């Protein structure tokens, strides 16, 4: 198996600071990395982090708020984001919208606080709305940073991201030719949450160089949900002689955007996000989500789907009953696992994953 060294978030932050960059701590899910980068700001995403002690955050939040938001707030309250200059909260769901309000109304952080209002459906009006929203954020960042990057600089950063998205898409399509464990593959994909585009791209190119013609003789599964935490969940799948052949995760595939068409940088960034893959937080139709999942199965040759839902994640749970029914009618087996990113993987979860993979392999024969 291929081994690739990945620097930690801390190392990347220290390097960025030493290069005079500002740091933006960005909460999930959708935002234009390129907009921040054009201001010489390093976006560092805050997906929890997992295994955080959330007691301080719990005082601010209702008990039915998911562990990603609980941990995200706790991480801030424990002063772990003090190194950041900016905090950005996209309004991805009610809980994250609430987090933005808590920051604004109760915590008043010393950081520059940016909220990102994301439209839901795929249409022209929403591209226009998001384009205007990004212009508002551009103005806020210009005032904060004391300069305004040119349209050329914005386009340069957009094209870098488009190129990376294209390579990531290619890697997904040849996943079974890559000498990487599920955990290894996703550790690299998820390093995009904080690496610079050049460093991330160099790692992708290194993987491409090592793609083989031989295929992994393992049973593939599609992994769906917000994020794969704890990452040990992948080890359990691999132990069963299976692998994650494709994903429908908010932190990964759902943010592999296509190229934009517009020559206007704001419109182009908006097009990329609005026209991106279906996502529960974007309110796509059941048919769009089902069609997307089905296409992931077809492209990857995977035999089933694991819905790995963070407890209390309302958008994910809203879709599940109908998706399960549609998948079942299409002969696609699925499993739902409920997780909390701050808890270790339970024995029941291990048993379910193993039984699911046994079922897929038995039905393959």
């Amino acid at each position, binding site marked *: 198996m291929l081994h690739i060294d990945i620097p930690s978030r801390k190392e990347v932050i220290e390097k960025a600071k030493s290069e005079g960059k500002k740091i933006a701590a960005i909460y999930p899910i959708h935002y234009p990395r390129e907009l921040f980068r054009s201001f010489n700001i390093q976006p560092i995403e805050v997906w929890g982090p997992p295994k955080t002690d959330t007691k301080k955050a719990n005082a601010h939040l209702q008990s039915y708020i998911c562990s990603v938001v609980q941990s995200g707030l706790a991480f801030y309250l424990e002063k772990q984001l003090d190194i950041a200059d900016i905090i950005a909260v996209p309004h991805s769901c009610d809980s994250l919208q609430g987090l933005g309000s808590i920051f604004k109304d109760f915590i008043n952080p010393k950081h520059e606080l940016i909220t990102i209002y994301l439209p839901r459906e795929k249409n022209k009006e929403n591209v226009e709305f998001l384009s205007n929203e990004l212009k508002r954020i551009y103005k806020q960042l210009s005032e904060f940073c004391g300069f305004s990057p040119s349209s050329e600089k914005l386009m340069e950063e957009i094209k870098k991201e488009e190129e990376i998205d294209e390579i990531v898409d290619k890697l997904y399509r040849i996943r079974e030719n890559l000498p990487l464990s599920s955990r290894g593959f996703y550790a690299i994909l998820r390093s995009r949450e904080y690496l610079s585009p050049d460093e991330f791209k160099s790692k992708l190119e290194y993987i491409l160089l090592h793609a083989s013609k031989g295929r992994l003789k393992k049973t593939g599964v599609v992994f769906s949900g917000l994020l794969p935490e704890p990452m040990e969940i992948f080890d359990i799948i691999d132990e069963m002689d299976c692998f994650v052949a494709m994903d429908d995760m908010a932190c990964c595939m759902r943010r592999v955007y296509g190229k934009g068409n517009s020559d206007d940088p704001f419109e182009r960034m908006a097009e990329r996000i609005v026209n991106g893959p279906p996502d529960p937080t974007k309110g796509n139709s059941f048919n769009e989500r089902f069609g997307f999942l089905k296409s992931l199965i077809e492209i990857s040759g995977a035999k089933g789907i694991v819905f790995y839902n963070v407890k209390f994640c309302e958008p994910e749970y809203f879709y599940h009953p109908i998706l399960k029914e549609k998948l079942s009618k299409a002969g696609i*087996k699925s499993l739902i696992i409920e997780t909390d990113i701050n808890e270790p993987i339970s024995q*029941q*979860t291990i048993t379910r994953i193993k039984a699911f993979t046994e079922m897929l392999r038995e039905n393959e024969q």
Partner: protein
Amino acid sequence: MEKVKSIGIDAGSTTLKIVGVEEEGKILFSVIEDADPKIEEQTDKLLGELRNNYDIENSKIVATGYGSNLIKADKKVTEITCHAKGIYEYFKTGGTAVDIGGQDNKVILISKNGKVVDFIMNDKCASGTGRFLENTSWRLKISTEKMAELAISSDNEVKISSTCAVFAESEVISQLSRGQKLEHVIKGLHRAMVKRITSMVYAIGFNPPLMLSGGVAKNKAVAQMLEEELGEKPLIPENPQIMGAFGAALIGLSE
């Protein structure tokens, strides 16, 4: 000495089950003991005792259950696959298998050719498991067998609102202190448990026949109430508790 082709070991949360089969899959022996936390030592001791009567030197060993990681075995398979295999081979039919164990329940849909089509397990909650009845049994100092008899003989039942294994225990005490008859309360307790299992069966989609495995399948009140709730008389093996270990042993035959 009879030659044992394959041995299945089901190291469950409450009991350890061992089944040995000959090459045609016929059961040669079965052993059930309360599970010891030192499961590896317990298994070695039992296998040592079996060596006195059976030739197990070249037997394949397949382990299943929560303690299976501690057992030296040729293969480890989940309880879902093992129960499905055991119950399918026992009844020679597909359908809906319900395994009610000490701390978890599994509902497994089995196809006509014996493959697992879908399954559901309880998660993070012991409601509807053997422990649900055992908690009250310990508290009332009445055996679970006696509780089942009381439930069957009762002509009335008190509704137990809680499906939580811990809160149900206190609700039973509360109902008794209000003067409700013991047998009515016990019947209500069984009903609450069975309704929890029934909801799992409907969640996955009930496909008759209904087949029971696991220690709680021996509880006649549970079997009777499942029939009332699902409208289908359950098929119950002679020894439902060993179905997981039996399935594991059968899997060993094909290794």
